[in-house]
């Protein structure tokens, strides 16, 4: 149990970070309802109910219907599945690329480092949205290509972070001890350095999920992301680009926007709490 002292302290610090705790509870409830509600209720995000176009919120349709008579509440729930899975999967792809590269760049004190960090510079100088637009056009707009594009463009943050962390961790005595007992470079990196450089990765991961959800909704809002009829929060808000929807039918775009903002803000707060929890130097 001795190695869990750090973990126990971290959990304690996270629980004491009240905003982060509340955000985490909201997020868990949201994810549960996105996963479970379709199993309990009869939700159908695709069917156009005849004669039920542009219905205001009421008894039959909790959040009303859209311009072609689809149930907005169901679309928000199903849209959440798409938006959140794009966010999580893209952030995971980025981590799988960025963490090993950061580890290598930090460990090897030679040309490899220069090459990796220069590539990071190139990727970071790109206006992300513009490149995402070009790539999504090349690959074809869909949830899957969004995951790939956001994932393969978003790894630089992890690399920079792990790189700078590894630089300090590899000076530690326990790494030197491992090296002097004949541990290979790979063993040193994976067994001794990586676990001690991982903590901030979780913080970056949560901010990356939020960032990816925002990027997905932005692209879908422009009509370049997830395509109709598949709902996402971004392409639901897109309805408001029609002036009459913007003016007279706020139920079509405001609930989707509120859910989107609440989700992203909550994820950011959780990331903030994680940062405070994993870094004992920060006072809450």
């Amino acid at each position, binding site marked *: 149990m001795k190695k869990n002292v750090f973990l126990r302290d971290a959990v304690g610090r996270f629980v004491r970070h009240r905003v982060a705790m509340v955000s985490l509870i909201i997020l868990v409830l949201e994810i549960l309802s996105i996963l479970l509600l379709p199993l309990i209720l009869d939700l159908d995000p695709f069917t156009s109910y005849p004669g039920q176009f542009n219905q205001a919120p009421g008894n039959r349709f909790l959040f009303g219907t859209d311009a072609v008579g689809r149930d907005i509440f169901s679309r928000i729930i199903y849209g959440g599945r798409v938006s959140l899975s794009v966010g999580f999967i893209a952030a995971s792809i980025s981590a799988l690329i960025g963490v090993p590269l950061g580890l290598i760049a930090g460990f090897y004190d030679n040309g490899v480092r220069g090459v990796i960090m220069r590539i990071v*510079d190139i990727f970071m100088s*790109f*206006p992300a949205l*513009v490149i995402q*637009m070009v790539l999504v056009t090349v690959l074809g707009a869909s949830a899957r290509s969004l995951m790939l594009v956001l994932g393969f463009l978003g790894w630089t943050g992890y690399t920079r972070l792990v790189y700078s962390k590894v630089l300090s961790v590899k000076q530690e005595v326990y790494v030197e001890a491992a090296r002097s007992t004949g541990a290979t470079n790979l063993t040193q990196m994976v067994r001794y350095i990586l676990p001690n450089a991982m903590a901030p990765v979780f913080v970056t991961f949560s901010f990356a999920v939020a960032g990816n959800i925002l990027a997905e909704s932005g692209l879908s*809002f422009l009509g370049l992301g997830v395509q109709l009829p598949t709902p996402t929060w971004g392409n639901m808000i897109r309805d408001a680009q029609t002036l009459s929807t*913007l003016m007279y039918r706020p139920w079509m775009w405001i609930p989707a926007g509120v859910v989107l903002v609440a989700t992203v803000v909550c994820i950011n*707060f959780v990331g903030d709490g994680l940062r405070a929890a994993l870094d004992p130097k920060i006072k809450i």
Partner: protein
Amino acid sequence: MSKYIIKRILVMIPVFFGMTALVFFLSNMTPGSPVDAMITPEMSVEDVEVLRHRMGLDQPVYVQYVKWLGRMLEGNLGNSYRTSNPVIKDIGERVVPTLILTLTVLAVGVVVGVTLGVLAACRPYSIWDTLASGLSFVGSGMPGFFIALLLVYCFSVKLGWLPTGGMYSNAGTRAFGDLARHMVLPTISMAMASAGNYIRQTRSAMLEVMGEEYVKMARAKGMREPVVLYVHALRNALLPIVTSIGMSVPGLVGGAVIIEQIFGWPGMGTLMVLSVTYRDYPVIMGITMYITIAVLFTNLVMDLLYAVLDPRIRN
């Protein structure tokens, strides 16, 4: 100092070539070649081959890249598929509106963000601090396009105070007041996120600096609090802000794409969305190159500014 400048410019060169290569190969990966769009039913297979040869498409990709790079450095970016105008002309018309918008947003974001960040840091856990951190979290969590729609809904649709879009009310007139009225909503929509970012950065930088010995020293010498704050603390706290202004430029440009689209702002962002919809690759590549150069240039300026502010890194 001149050695430092040369070093910074040399570092930019691989970045520049890396980006041009990426842009070129990306647009080469696209399904369908530009020739397909020009083929007419009367053309024979030989005619198509001649066309391919004339456009240089029968050569290896790296040869095409070098030729494209050469033409681009001469300022020749080809013609738009959509309008048949030279790309440089189509983009040229759009540069100024985008510059006006993004520079205003940058200025508003930095001024509001740094001011609120300093206020929050001077009085931690006060109402200012709560307000500033609240704003920074909402600013970073709320996508610009949703803020934009809410603002249009409130101030243009419901209250009728401000126009819903465009740059001028009449095509012919160019009054500054009119321009300013059209800029209020797009600027707020974009500046929220960047102000939020600067609030967080300034606050933590100020808190860090205020614990330093030279700030205690300044206080111990009996200097007035404003002098301590703005002369001794802020100048040093601003250093990381300068870097983050440089790093924020790509994001700002990306935000402009969406916001311009919502407000019908006649800038490069609107052109970008239009070109992507039409798969107008010469224009897409042109805009991407334009933005890349602008971003590299800003980064250089920021690096130099940093060197001016922090004499330690010049050597």
